[in-house]
C-alpha cells in the first residue's frame, strides 16, 4: 500500500530549489536552484550483498548552469534561477539535459571519465611540453584507470528567442525537437540548431491593452510528436496539432470547465489560473493544477474534467490575506506516478498531498526535519477547518505560508518521490514489506 512512506534522504542545499526532475530510468535526479546551479543525484547500484538495501541517491555532478545577466537595452534584470530541467532519453553513455532560466535554454552533456591516457611522447605527466630534442624513444600512450570524474559541458545554448519569461520546456517524443514556452509565445527548436527556432504559438495581441490571458505551461504529448498542450491564466487548456498549420494559433481542442456565474468573485480568475499541466504516461489524460485543485481531463472530453481533487479548499476563507501576501500567485506543480494511478502535488506548511485515482483515497504528508528520522514512516497530517481541533491536527490559522512545496517529482517506475521544500530536498521511498 503506497501510503506508507519511509523518510529516506534529506539533502540540504545552499539555495532555494526551483525545479526537480527524474530522468527516464529514475537512475538520476536533477535539481535546479535559484542561484542557477544544477545538482544531479545518482542512485547507488544495489549490491549483491545487500539485496534489501535500496539504492541511495548521492551527489553525482554539480555545475553552474546559468549566470545572472542584465539586458541593458530593455533595462531588464535576467535571473539565473533555473525554471525547468528536462532530461533527454539516454542514447549513449552520456546523459543530456535541458535547463532553462527566464530567457535562455541550455543543453548540457554530463559524462563520466574513468580512464586517462598516460605515456604521451611530446608531453610529460604534468602536461608540459617536452623538448623534442630530448626524446630518444617512442612509446604508445595507454589508457589507465583513474578516479571517476563526472564532467558537465554546455553543448548548445539556445538564446535570444524569448521576449517574455520562459515558463516551460518540453522534449518531443521524436527526440529531435523540443519546445520552449513563455508568457505569450511558444517556440519549437531542433537540438542541433541554435540560431533558429520556429514560432508555433503566438497569443500576443496587436494592442497590449487587450491582453487578457497568458500561457502558463506547455508540454508535448508523450507519444504523438505532432501534439502538444498549453494552459492559460484563465484556466483553459488548448491542444494543438502541428500538422494542421505552421502557426498553431487555432487550437484543435479547447478544454474548459463551465463556471457557475453565481459563484464568481474577484478571486475567481486568479485561482483558476493553471500553474502546471502534465500528460499522463499513457497519453490519454492531462492533469492541471490551479490554486486550490488538481483536475484530470480526458483528451476526448473538452467540456469538463473527469476528476477534480481538492488540495486545500480550507484556503477559500483565507483568500483575502493570501492575495495581500501574494501567496495566491504561487505556482504549484503536479505529477503522475509511473502507472498514472496516483497524483501528487504540494501545499503550504511543507505539506504535500497524494490522491489515489482508483481508490479515491487521499493523504496529506509533511516534509520536515522534525518529523523525519531515517527509515521512519511518515505520518498522515490533517488540517482542521473549524470547531474542535484534535490533538494531532493543525488549524488553518497556524499554517506557515512561507513553507511551500511547489516542486515534486515521481520516479518513472518505482514508488520513490522527491519533494523540494525551500532549500531542502527530501527523498521518500515506499516501505519495503
Amino acid at each position: 500500500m503506497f501510503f506508507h512512506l519511509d523518510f529516506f534522504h534529506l539533502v540540504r542545499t545552499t539555495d532555494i530549489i526551483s525545479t526537480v526532475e527524474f530522468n527516464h530510468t529514475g537512475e538520476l535526479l536533477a535539481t535546479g536552484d535559484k542561484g542557477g546551479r544544477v545538482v544531479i543525484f545518482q542512485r547507488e547500484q544495489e549490491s549483491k550483498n545487500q539485496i534489501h538495501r535500496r539504492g541511495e541517491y548521492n551527489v553525482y555532478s554539480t555545475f553552474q548552469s546559468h549566470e545572472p545577466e542584465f539586458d541593458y537595452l530593455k533595462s531588464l534584470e535576467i535571473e539565473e534561477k533555473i525554471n525547468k530541467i528536462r532530461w533527454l532519453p539516454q542514447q549513449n553513455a552520456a546523459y543530456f539535459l535541458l535547463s532553462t532560466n527566464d530567457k535562455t535554454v541550455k543543453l548540457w552533456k554530463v559524462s563520466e571519465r574513468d580512464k586517462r591516457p598516460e605515456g604521451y611522447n611530446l608531453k610529460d605527466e604534468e602536461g608540459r611540453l617536452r623538448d623534442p630534442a630530448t626524446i630518444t624513444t617512442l612509446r604508445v600512450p595507454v589508457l589507465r584507470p583513474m578516479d571517476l570524474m563526472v564532467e558537465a559541458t554546455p553543448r548548445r545554448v539556445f538564446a535570444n528567442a524569448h521576449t517574455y519569461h520562459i515558463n516551460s520546456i518540453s522534449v518531443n517524443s521524436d527526440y529531435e525537437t523540443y519546445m520552449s514556452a513563455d508568457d505569450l509565445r511558444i517556440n519549437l527548436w531542433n537540438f542541433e540548431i541554435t540560431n533558429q527556432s520556429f514560432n508555433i504559438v503566438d497569443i500576443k495581441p496587436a494592442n497590449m491593452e487587450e491582453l487578457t490571458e497568458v500561457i502558463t505551461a506547455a508540454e508535448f504529448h508523450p507519444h504523438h510528436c505532432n501534439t502538444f498542450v498549453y494552459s492559460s491564466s484563465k484556466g483553459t487548456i488548448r491542444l494543438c496539432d502541428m500538422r494542421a498549420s505552421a502557426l498553431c494559433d487555432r487550437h484543435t481542442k479547447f478544454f474548459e470547465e463551465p463556471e457557475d456565474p453565481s459563484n464568481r468573485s474577484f478571486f475567481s480568475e486568479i485561482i483558476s489560473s493553471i500553474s502546471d499541466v502534465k500528460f499522463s504516461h499513457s497519453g490519454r489524460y492531462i492533469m492541471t493544477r490551479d490554486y486550490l485543485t488538481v483536475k484530470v481531463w480526458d483528451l476526448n472530453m473538452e467540456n469538463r474534467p473527469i476528476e477534480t481533487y481538492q488540495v486545500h479548499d480550507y484556503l477559500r476563507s483565507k483568500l483575502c490575506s493570501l492575495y495581500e501576501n501574494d501567496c495566491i500567485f504561487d505556482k504549484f506543480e503536479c505529477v503522475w506516478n509511473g502507472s498514472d494511478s496516483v497524483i501528487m502535488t504540494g501545499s503550504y506548511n511543507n505539506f504535500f498531498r497524494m490522491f489515489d485515482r482508483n481508490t479515491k483515497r487521499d493523504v496529506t504528508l509533511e516534509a520536515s526535519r522534525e518529523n523525519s528520522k531515517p527509515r521512519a514512516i511518515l505520518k498522515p497530517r490533517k488540517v482542521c477547518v473549524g470547531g474542535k481541533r484534535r490533538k494531532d491536527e493543525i488549524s488553518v490559522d497556524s499554517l506557515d505560508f512561507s513553507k511551500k512545496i511547489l516542486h515534486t517529482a515521481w520516479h518513472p517506475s518505482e514508488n520513490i518521490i522527491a519533494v523540494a521544500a525551500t532549500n531542502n530536498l527530501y527523498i521518500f521511498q515506499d516501505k519495503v514489506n
Partner: protein
Amino acid sequence: MCVYRLVEVNGPVTGLGPVTQSAKIRVEDTQEKEGILPERAEEAKLKAKYPSLGQKPGGSDFLMKRLQKGQKYFDSGDYNMAKAKMKNKQLPSAGPDKNLVTGDHIPTPQDLPQRKSSLVTSKLAGGQVE
C-alpha cells in the same frame, strides 16, 4: 460588531461526489450577505480594505505586472556621471535633499526633473500613475 455563523457550504463536484464542508465565516452585520460562499466574504473583506480595487479589469493589471517582472531602470547617463565624479572626488555626497537621491552614490542635480514613479503599478493602489 461581527456575528459568527456556522454555515454549510457545498463544495464543487469532485470524483468523490458532492462534498459538504462546514466553515465558520464572519458575516458583517451592516452588509448584505454576499452569498454564503467564503470567497465572497473574502472579496468583501478585500474591497473594504482597498476600495479602489477592481475598478480596472483585474486581469490586465496582474498580467502586465507579470510580463514586466525584472524591470530595473538603469540610466547610463547617471552611471557615467557617477563614474566621472568618482574620479574627481573620493565619495560623492548625497544631495541636501535626500528625496532627490536616485541611487546609492549618485547625487541628483537640482535641475534634473523629478523621476516618475514606476510604470509597474501597485496592484493595491488602483493603478494611478503620476
